[in-house]
């Protein structure tokens, strides 16, 4: 385990690892701007009574863009959880498609609005989340990877999870099995230090989740999840290891959850004022903005352009999705099983 620093002094050339270019960094930052604008809009739509529930990705943006950049969406699998707005945008989901999830509109792409936002399966990339129960995706991800290994496919499975899920028995069982069979999985923990309100020291007696990796015979790495280059580098190494047949890795990206757990939570009940102040210094958006500007990758005009574009895209998506109807009642009866329709009193 090592903390990998990537920062450099002002004006110096940013040392980019293999596969990461200034263009990709700029594109990732643009997606982060979009994600932040959309995230703020979703919260507003909740307060307006239009979006029933939302879990914010604010604070997790760098971790998610870095992870997606290190993978190959044309062949890899993504088992996400509910805080993955940025990752979904990075994988090509449109803002309208995202808002249709939160507003439960007809034609919603993941689950036809049967499920909470960010649950279901994506039509264009192999991204899915079956459940709201944290940690269930970890053994499932291992099974997905097992199938790839059995079929000699060149695919990597990324299983996102949070520090809360790390306490589930499924987490232990999944990593144990992946270690035994050297499966091509990246266990990607976005550790934001809180399982809703329970702080890390009440969740585990050790300092880091990555330190558990040794128990499963796999490498574990703990990285500053606000550092886009270091995060990319760590995930890329894990993806390369998996793709070359050398098994799983546990990557722990340390992030901050800038908003309460969900729109139904109030973190001032359990976070101190000092903690809240401190976390604001770890907002990955200004950190990345500053990094890219220091190294001449981003200038003020482009930054302004990105933010205006994001704002316009979110306005357009809000109009487009709000204009759509809810799913029809009749649609709820279909597709329980392949052969039968639901709604039969004996079925």
């Amino acid at each position, binding site marked *: 385990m090592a903390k990998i620093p990537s920062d450099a002094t002002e004006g110096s050339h940013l040392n980019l690892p293999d596969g990461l270019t200034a263009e990709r960094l700029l594109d990732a930052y643009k997606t982060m701007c979009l994600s932040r604008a959309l995230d703020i809009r979703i919260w507003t739509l909740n307060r307006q009574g239009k979006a029933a529930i939302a879990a914010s990705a604010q604070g997790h943006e760098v971790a998610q863009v870095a992870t997606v950049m290190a993978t190959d969406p044309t062949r890899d*699998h993504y088992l996400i959880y509910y805080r993955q707005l940025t990752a979904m945008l990075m994988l090509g989901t449109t803002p309208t498609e995202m808002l249709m999830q939160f507003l439960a509109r007809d034609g919603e792409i993941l689950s036809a609005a049967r499920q909470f936002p960010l649950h279901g399966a994506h039509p264009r990339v192999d991204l899915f989340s079956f459940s709201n129960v944290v940690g269930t995706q970890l053994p*499932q991800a291992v099974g997905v990877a097992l199938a790839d290994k059995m079929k000699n496919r060149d695919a990597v499975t990324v299983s996102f999870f949070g520090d809360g899920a790390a306490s589930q028995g499924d987490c232990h069982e999944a990593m144990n099995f992946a270690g035994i069979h050297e499966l091509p999985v990246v266990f990607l923990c976005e550790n934001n230090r809180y399982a809703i309100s329970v702080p890390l020291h009440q969740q585990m007696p050790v300092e880091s989740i990555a330190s558990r990796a040794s128990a499963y015979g796999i490498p574990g790495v703990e990285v500053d999840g606000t550092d886009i280059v270091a995060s990319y580098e760590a995930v890329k190494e894990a993806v390369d290891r998996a793709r070359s047949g050398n098994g799983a890795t546990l990557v722990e990206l340390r992030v901050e959850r800038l908003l309460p757990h969900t729109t139904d939570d109030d973190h001032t009940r359990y976070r101190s004022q000092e903690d809240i102040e401190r976390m604001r210094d770890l907002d990955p958006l200004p950190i990345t903005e500053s990094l890219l500007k220091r190294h001449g990758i981003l200038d003020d005009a482009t930054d302004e352009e990105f933010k205006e574009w994001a704002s316009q895209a979110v306005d357009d998506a809000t109009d487009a999705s709000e204009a759509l109807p809810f799913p029809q009642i009749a649609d709820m009866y279909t597709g329980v099983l392949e052969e039968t329709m639901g709604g039969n009193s004996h079925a």
Partner: protein
Amino acid sequence: MPEMTLIEAVRETLRTEMRRDPDIFMMGEDIGPRGGVFLASEGFVEEFGEDRVMNSPLAESSIIGIALGAAVNGMRPVAEIQFADFVWPAINQLVGEAARVRYGTNGRKFAPLTVRVPYGGGVRGGLYHSQSIEVLFAHTPGLQVIAPATPWDARGLLRSAIRSNDPVVFLEHKRTYRLVRGEAPDHEYTEPIGKADIKRAGTDATLITYGLMLHYSLQAAEIVAQSDGIETEIVDLRTLRPIDAETILDSVSRTGRALIVQEDTGAVSVSSEVSAIIAAEGFFNLDAPVMRVTPPEIPPMPFSPLQEAEFMPSPEKIADAIRRLTEI
């Protein structure tokens, strides 16, 4: 036509399906060189290798969770839960996850997953090797629950289960494994999921049952036929979800009397559901109240022999119930 025990029927079906479809693999505790504690996969490692007959760690939740992940990624796993009593850690992955995959993704993902679960008592298994666990699964939309009682049905229905594109909980009664012998064809036939089967024709009463209790009920029907001339029709449910209401109601409409026999405790159970179906849709064909034979409401089931025997429905108890029902 070959005659075989029920465990042989399960084993031969697994073997022939594994030969037919390379996407099928098995996973469970001790199923490798040991062949499973009931020998359902005896000799399989030699034929199919350890990659397709995978010993799993002793961890039921991940047996189902991993099988589910493989199922949604192109495989057709057959997972074994060693004893039904051990299925509870896997409930979340089965009831919470697998059952909702198709519905929760609007059909984009589906799970061709078979979970074989040896269950049931009368084997001196005590509280943790005797349980009947069907109710929770039979209650769950998105699951199919099969409980065959004969080698013929075990073969035809296990084949259907493995070939189904949705999850199946396949319940094998442990006491029937070696106790029950019967004919089962070698050719690749299937029996339909969701169809009950009339195992004995009769005119005086309909007895609805499944699993081991089918055999006790058949014995009971012979007892009352000889002692009282009562002819009992026996409906073997075979599938507990979806339940074949049509066959039940058709039989009850001809006999006017219904007795439901199950080894599981009665409150909020399969027999409750069958009673409700008959009450709602067969009421005007009834000549007597619906009657049930179920064990006492204590945790199934005591280890000591006299208490275990008292707990289990028996051919004699079932015969008494048939007599009482037909006297009304």
